[in-house]
């Protein structure tokens, strides 16, 4: 059984249709890269799965159960969403921020249990933020902050993680670290959908890529099959340098078609 099944999903903002007839299965332990041009509906798809947007038609099943029938709190136990904008409104410490990730599991007025503490520590180690656990958020760089937000998303030990451009503000080293970490989480059973713009990074670390174009899924499959010259021209309007190396594919966009 798939962890996440999406059948004939359509989403619209008012009358403007954004996604049409999306069907997608994500299995347990799979990391799926969601790619596509700006405005192709990647974030909309993540938000619809996370329950942040009303669905026009179609179904979303989380571990076989209709997401539409689940309470927000119930859904939060299975699914974690890392938004693109990393806004933090109050200047709390890194540790406090990561502990917010445990809220779906905390009972009414109950303090953090030792299981919560363990999960928080593990999430901070996974995102490599233990070194500045006690620092306030305002004193972090953009990249450090986005790793802290990733740690928050991991702290709930979700079955499904939806991450919207988790590497966009990271240096190449930390971007690779984060992708390896996400890959590692997939290998330990978590299902991930990750929105990405760095095609090489996506190709190297995702099991599968899904290309969104003109409201629909234009391609879905192993990275090498999706990142063809035709798909890159259709999906992004670019031609690219593509090379299969011993360490995986390298894709460098060169110019507009």
């Amino acid at each position, binding site marked *: 059984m798939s962890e996440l099944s999406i059948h004939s999903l359509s989403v619209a903002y008012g009358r403007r249709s954004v996604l049409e007839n999306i069907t997608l299965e994500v299995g347990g332990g799979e990391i799926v890269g969601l790619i596509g041009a700006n405005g192709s509906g990647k974030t909309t798809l993540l938000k619809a799965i996370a329950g942040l947007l009303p669905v026009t038609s179609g179904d979303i099943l989380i571990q076989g159960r209709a997401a539409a029938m689940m309470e927000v*709190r119930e859904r939060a136990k299975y699914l974690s*969403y890392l938004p693109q904008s990393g806004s933090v409104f109050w200047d709390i410490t890194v540790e406090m921020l990561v502990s917010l990730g445990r809220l779906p599991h905390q009972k009414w007025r109950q303090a953090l249990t030792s299981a919560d503490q363990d999960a928080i520590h593990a999430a901070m180690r996974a995102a490599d933020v233990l070194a500045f656990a006690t620092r306030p958020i305002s004193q972090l760089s953009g990249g450090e902050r986005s790793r802290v937000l990733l740690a928050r998303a991991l702290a*709930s030990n979700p079955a499904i993680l939806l991450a919207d451009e988790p590497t966009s503000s990271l240096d190449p080293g930390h971007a690779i670290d984060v992708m390896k970490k996400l890959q590692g989480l997939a290998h330990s059973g978590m299902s991930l959908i990750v929105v990405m713009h760095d095609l090489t990074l996506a190709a190297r670390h995702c099991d599968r890529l899904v290309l969104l174009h003109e409201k629909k899924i234009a391609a879905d499959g192993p990275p090498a099959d999706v990142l063809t010259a035709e798909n890159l021209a259709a999906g992004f309007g670019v031609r690219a340098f593509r090379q299969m190396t011993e360490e995986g594919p390298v894709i460098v966009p060169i110019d507009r078609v």
Partner: protein
Amino acid sequence: MFLLSLLGVIVLLAFMASLLVGRSVTALPDLLSLLLESEQGTELLIFQEVRLPRAILGLLIGATLGLSGAAMQGFLRNPLAEPGIIGVSASASFGAVVAFYFGFASLFAFALPLGGMIGAALGVLIVQLLAGRGGSPLSFILAGVAVTSFAAALTSLALNMAENPFAAMEIMFWLMGSLADRSFDHVWISAPFMLAGWAILLTTGRALDALTLGEEAATTLGFNLQSVQTRLIIGTALAVGAATSVAGAIGFIGLVVPHILRRFVGNRPGALLPASALGGAALMLIADVAVRLLSPDRELKLGVLTALVGAPFFLYLILRERKRIS
């Protein structure tokens, strides 16, 4: 925990001070011997019928303002928000002014607070209808501004049309906010609403913590923001509506107290709720003792004092904040 205990001790001391200070200052041993005597002297009567209800109201109203101010700032993620932002203070004031204007206030004692609470309920109902089911802070603020402006305009109209200058003066004085000459009747009529409001507001702590990460993240952490907004509106309406109805509009406590205490709770909006309730009670009691000491003959109105001291202090806080950032 240390902070809450410390604030609790300050509240206790301020409460004692409020009992002992009046037109005549009672020494603590005298008060104790008074209480132990079975004879019903004038001093005991003053203590029971004047100072005790006044101190209790100071405690309850201060806590209400501090708590609802902290909840409002947390929900709107804006340190400049205050309890009155949803229009509850202005509409409660207007309701009380109507009771004055049509002479109900002179007919029966409960007319003023009752008018205030009806006003608050109507005002908040309109805000809830205007803000709709979207749960967006912006529409919430705009609805509050609209209701506040309209209620203030109607209050001005009542003043404008008042038949004699004394009626207008009476309304003006009431609007300034005070705890003078309140009795246990005022405590009994307002306390249940304030306590119910507190209970509702205190349920929002975890959701306010989650809102630190924004609305989308808070929703995916399992919080129904529509329900949070509704609880916030109802809780504030009950507590602040009741508070304004018995004491008039007392500004700045709901704004300044959460602001001062925020850094002592590590900026966590949920932890700020109980701290701010205690801090509000302490500040209100201290301010009410101050008005009695500052001008014993012609008593300074409490609302005037809090605004006079609160506004420059708030300015100082903003300047210090700017300095820290730059």
